[in-house]
């Protein structure tokens, strides 16, 4: 069986082969085996490589290297930002603003803050999936400790105007965090935008390895952040634990490569996505979740009337690897709360496919994917009872 066409880059992107090579070289190099925190020559050699990677990562988001805290991934970054910033606040600031469409990391971190006695305002998106700066403005209070809103949504790809939100927070002295796991390396992301205090991202969404991420922590003024894990005091005291050089080297190179591709790649991917959307019209009735723009280029969330999601996935199994709206957002498999908060019915949610494109995706791939999906949808619909097409939408 030929390998399935991979259209699940938003779940994780395949490791860039150049990054794989660099990591393998790092793992095999006897000179780079020491602990970067060790004072001896071997440790210093490792520390130099860490500094190099930190610079590469920082550059992609226009930050200074000292503002980058390495973590184990975006889940940790988001938790460190949200839990850390709020727990570090005095009792006078107990209010948090976030949205209903954050990634589970942000959502569950804010739920934990509620359990810890904080009050959370959960902004709801419009039917277009967008959270607007005016909603944030209306939610801010005297005692707001943190605003945490994702940049690009991982299920529907829509972008929040974080510049506008950051500006609001800046004006009021409120810490603003954005989860940029789905946007860094896909569109230009600039930490120097006034008001961005904390910004989360990770390597494996942009061609780097899984298990490593970063939190940008603004230097001046530096937001107070309580660490999640304590220990030797690495990463400016914010994130203790031995640094994994091969992971950082892979992350660094992936950032450099993604940065170099930012000129052409977004437009190419966006064009492919719209081509896919056009070709899928042959499977009408269907709908698109979330506004087409503003968005990151590579994510298309589409629902097919009369389709049961699990059967569609089995139809596509071995042909196309994609995510289902039935279970986009968790390791446990519940219907997407993101699509639900866009006002979709549970039936419509489960009939959804998230197709996400990446660097390796070609026009040929898109054509093949569209024809496979159109055929699969047609076959399942051919067996539907009368009336089902209308009721499942």
């Amino acid at each position, binding site marked *: 069986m030929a390998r399935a066409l991979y259209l*699940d880059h*938003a*779940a*994780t992107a395949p490791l860039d082969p150049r990054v794989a090579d660099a990591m393998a070289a790092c793992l095999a190099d006897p000179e780079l085996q020491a602990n970067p925190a060790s004072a001896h020559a071997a440790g210093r050699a490792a520390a130099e490589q860490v500094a190099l990677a930190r610079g590469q990562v920082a550059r992609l988001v226009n930050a200074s290297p000292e503002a980058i805290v390495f973590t184990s991934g975006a889940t940790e970054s988001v938790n460190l930002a949200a839990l850390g910033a709020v727990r570090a606040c005095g009792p006078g600031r107990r209010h948090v603003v976030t949205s209903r469409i954050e990634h589970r990391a942000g959502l569950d971190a804010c739920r934990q803050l509620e359990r810890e006695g904080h009050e959370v305002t959960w902004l709801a998106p419009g039917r277009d999936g967008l959270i607007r700066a005016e909603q944030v403005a209306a939610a801010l209070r005297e005692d707001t400790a943190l605003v945490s809103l994702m940049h690009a949504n*991982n299920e529907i790809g829509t972008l929040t105007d974080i510049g506008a939100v950051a500006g609001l927070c800046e004006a009021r002295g409120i810490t603003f965090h954005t989860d940029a796991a789905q946007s860094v390396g896909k569109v230009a992301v600039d930490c120097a935008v006034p008001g961005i205090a904390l910004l989360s991202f990770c390597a494996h969404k942009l061609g780097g390895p899984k298990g490593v991420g970063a939190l940008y922590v603004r230097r001046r003024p530096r937001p107070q952040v309580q660490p999640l894990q304590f220990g030797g005091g690495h990463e400016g005291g914010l994130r203790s634990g031995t640094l994994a050089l091969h992971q950082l080297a892979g992350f660094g190179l992936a950032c450099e490569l993604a940065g170099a591709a930012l000129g052409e790649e977004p437009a190419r991917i966006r064009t492919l996505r719209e081509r896919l959307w056009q070709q899928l019209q042959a499977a009408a009735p269907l709908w698109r979740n979330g506004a087409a723009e503003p968005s990151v280029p590579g994510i298309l969330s589409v629902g097919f009337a*009369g389709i*049961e999601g*699990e*059967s569609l*996935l*089995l139809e596509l199994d071995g042909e196309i690897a994609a*995510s*289902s709206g*039935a*279970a*986009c*957002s968790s*390791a*446990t*498999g519940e219907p997407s709360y993101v699509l639900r908060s866009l006002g979709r019915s*549970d*039936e419509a949610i*489960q009939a959804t496919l998230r197709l996400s494109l990446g660097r390796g995706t070609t026009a040929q791939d898109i054509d093949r994917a569209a024809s496979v999906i159109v055929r699969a949808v047609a*076959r399942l619909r*051919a*067996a*539907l*009872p*009368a009336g*089902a097409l209308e*009721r*499942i939408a």
Partner: protein
Amino acid sequence: MSAPATRYSATVRSHFRSLAGAGDLPPAAGAAVSGEAVALDRLAWVRFAVRIDAGRIVDCRFRAFGCPHTLAAASLVAGRLRGAPIDALPAFDAGTLACELDAPAEKMGRLLVVEDALRHLLANAHRVQ
């Protein structure tokens, strides 16, 4: 980012792949009888149609919306009904279907919809008799 890997038995895969028996009854001699059950909250909707002639089910078709187990169960039932004498029909319930399909426990609710559709079919068939 995705559903827990549900594994499908060879029986499920083969019925799902062919969807044998899906569609409408072709015109023929005998009485056409149908039975249907819907439970959209469980994502299952199954309709059986049979043609009965001389005390025997001479043809059986299904239409269904549902997961692979639901579709496979409907297809399996349709195949078994075809040719069966009306007074000695094979017995099916959700339990036997789950067993034949090697379905996980969380699929029982959906298989009950198949069982319901079959029950309605048989009730209608006996009324026709």
